């Protein structure tokens, strides 16, 4: 290269400065590339990112109360929840108006359901009150304090008003607190009573069992992947089919098959009893608990471990092992010092895949997990489908998502994501 004097600018054929012209053509290339992937980008944004964001935003949204009972929320602002006294007449009057409007618009049950998550009994309290309130004349029928308390004695309980006030802001931390076995009260965040704590336990169980599943997959998958990569083509192909066949079988079929295998009157127990290894009365309990979930999920996720391992191992030249041995290494040293380090990217890729799939697994724990082997995802499904507490479900989902991202980040820091290979 010859040094260009700084006062002389290189020009391209059309007389523009070369630098400008180059950056322009690069930009055009970029735009063209972007346009080419635009359909995919838009699709991902609309069908994947937007729904996730809208679902996650439910974990803090709480405008139902202030939208349905606007006057009451306003009136409650001047009431001190810790004063130990019931709110005064204006609050009751505001509530009478709100509940009447809500009942006419048929929206009172939604807010009742929302508040019932926080305090049992509010659902029927609202329903009963709304039925009566429809007939009231708000201008002339006051005072409403005694009237409401007469409709239902719940309106004479400070706890009910505290719950209303605590959960009236448009955005709430309540769902996230609930998700970690705490609750939002008028006095601030507080622990749930012990007989209602379950979610932290489920998060822990999900993490621990997913780790166990990942390790069992590594242990079982590594030798298989090694065989696949090192056997002659014919046998390797046959073995590959054996790996892929269950992969193509329906998830439900495989899970149900484990039920048949593992249950107390099942195949494995029958064989053990016939061989007199266990007595007929002491048949092993291997399903509807942790063991069932771990066994079934390890089996189901095994291909996700084997395939990345295999594709990495295929790229390791067998000559390296021969070279190590010819230089005097024992079989073990050659494997451990030469072969294994090169297969680590495959283990990494497989582990990430299996772990992230396991942590969000739902259907297998539901079928074979009983009560001791279910995951946090089963609880999320319950709140989405049955209790309809979508806010709590969203908070649980957000926590799960963050946990996965944190683990991914740690993995990147410790091992480096560049070391992960899915093949090639």
């Amino acid at each position, binding site marked *: 290269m010859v040094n260009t004097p700084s006062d002389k600018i290189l020009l391209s054929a059309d007389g523009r400065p070369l630098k400008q012209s180059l950056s322009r053509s690069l930009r055009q290339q970029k735009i063209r590339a972007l346009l080419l992937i635009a359909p995919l980008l838009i699709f991902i944004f609309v069908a994947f990112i937007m729904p996730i964001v809208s679902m996650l935003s439910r974990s803090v949204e709480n405008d139902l109360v202030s939208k349905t009972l606007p006057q009451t929320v306003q009136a409650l602002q001047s009431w001190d929840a810790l004063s130990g006294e019931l709110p005064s007449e204006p609050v009751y009057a505001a509530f009478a108006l709100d509940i009447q409007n809500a009942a006419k618009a048929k929206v009172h*049950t939604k807010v009742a359901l929302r508040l019932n998550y926080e305090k049992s009994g509010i*659902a029927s309290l609202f*329903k009963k009150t709304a039925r009566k309130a429809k007939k009231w004349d708000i201008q002339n029928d006051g005072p409403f304090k005694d009237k409401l308390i007469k409709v239902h004695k719940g309106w004479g309980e400070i706890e009910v008003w505290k719950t209303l006030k605590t959960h009236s802001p448009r955005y709430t931390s309540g769902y996230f607190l609930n998700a970690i076995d705490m609750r939002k009260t008028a006095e601030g965040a507080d622990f749930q009573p012990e007989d*209602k704590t379950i979610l932290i336990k489920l998060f822990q169980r999900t993490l621990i069992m997913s780790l166990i599943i990942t390790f069992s997959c590594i242990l079982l998958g590594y030798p298989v992947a090694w065989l696949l990569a090192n056997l002659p083509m014919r046998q390797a192909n046959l073995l590959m089919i054996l790996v892929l066949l269950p992969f193509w079988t329906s998830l439900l079929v495989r899970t149900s098959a484990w039920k048949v295998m593992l249950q107390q009157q099942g195949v494995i127990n029958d064989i053990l009893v016939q061989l007199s290894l266990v007595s007929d009365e002491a048949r092993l309990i291997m399903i509807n608990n942790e063991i069932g979930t771990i066994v079934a999920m390890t089996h189901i996720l095994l291909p996700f471990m084997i395939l990345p391992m295999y594709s990495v191992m295929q790229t390791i030249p067998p000559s390296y092992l021969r070279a190590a041995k010819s230089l005097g290494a024992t079989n073990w040293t050659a494997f451990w010092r030469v072969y294994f380090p090169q297969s680590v990217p495959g283990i990494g890729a497989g582990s990430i895949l299996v772990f992230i799939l396991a942590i969000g697994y739902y259907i297998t724990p539901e079928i074979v997990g009983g009560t001791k082997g279910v995951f946090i995802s089963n*609880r999320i499904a319950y709140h989405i489908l049955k209790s*309809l507490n979508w806010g709590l479900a969203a908070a649980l989902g957000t926590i799960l998502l963050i946990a996965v991202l944190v683990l991914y980040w740690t993995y990147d820091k410790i091992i480096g994501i560049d070391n992960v290979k899915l093949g090639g």
Partner: protein
Amino acid sequence: MNFTKTIMTTASAALISGAAFADGHMSMEMTIVSWGGAYSNSQLRAYHEPYSAKTGVTILNDDSSSTAVAQLRAMNEANNITWDVVDVEAAPAMQLCDEGLAMEIDPDTMLAAAPDGTPASEDFGDMLVSECFIPQIVYSTTFGYRTDLVGDTPPDNVCAVFDTKTYPGKRSLFSVPINQMEWALLCDGVAKSEIYDVLATEEGQDRALAKLDTIKDDVIWVSSGSDTPQLLADGEVIMGATYNGRLFSLIEEQKQPVAMIWDGQVMDLDGWIIPAGLSPERQARALDYIMFATDTQRLADQAKYISYGPARASSAPLVGKHADLGIDMAPHMPTAPENLSRAFLMNYDFWADYRDDLDAKFQAWLAK
């Protein structure tokens, strides 16, 4: 100019006639949501097939009833309701109605009268638990036991479930508080009429869980109605709770050595709702279907295929024999007089209030 005008007039004329045409007509395709399995099959044979034959309507089936409330809510938020008629239990129907997600029904104008002219509101009577709910069947959750595994004195009382001395072995229960808490209190000596009052108190809830504690290690907890029949057939449990229709098919159709305990059966209702916000053609079609499918004869017909009791009083005398097995179906109904006398009625209002709270407690207790 003239040309454009002509086109415009023709177009608007076509539009108007099109609208008029659609007004008088009903859509020719409908999606009916139900539970799947033998139950959907009984509806297919008793309602769908005759209705399609009569009107030429194409009926699409969707087995999503177990998640109907959540899905209808989501459809409502997305403003795209794809279901025309939905089969749900009474409690979700009440909730859907309260939330304005189901259409209100006037039984006397929208449902068929009984053959003797009794208006539908009287014929259904107490079964009309909500303004939106069109009752179809009475079902119950009850226990079945293995006749070969319970010794010489077969259980006749629901409390046999808690008696592990006389009946050792595993039993299956649903992993939800509904029903299990009631049975626990019932067998702990609480009178049927007081159960929900007791269950509304902290002490009562602890008492129910303490009773369940005595058999916790002997229970396989299940989540779906198909689990217990399978567990009974495999001999995994000696007794277990499920829906009476499932037990009927296990006993009579699959000839398994299983018998039923009618004592302490918890009765519940199942029926139709029509989602709110359907287009006029689809709503007209849904109403026409409902009018047909819930008349006296049709409800009685369904009992030919599955052992659930018709919700109309006038259907009961018409219940005949099973279509394939030829068994007299009347004694297999939860509503048969001798079965009914030992039944227990679920309190919907109680569970609407306490379900979330008790479920959290119950799950925490299960995980302990």
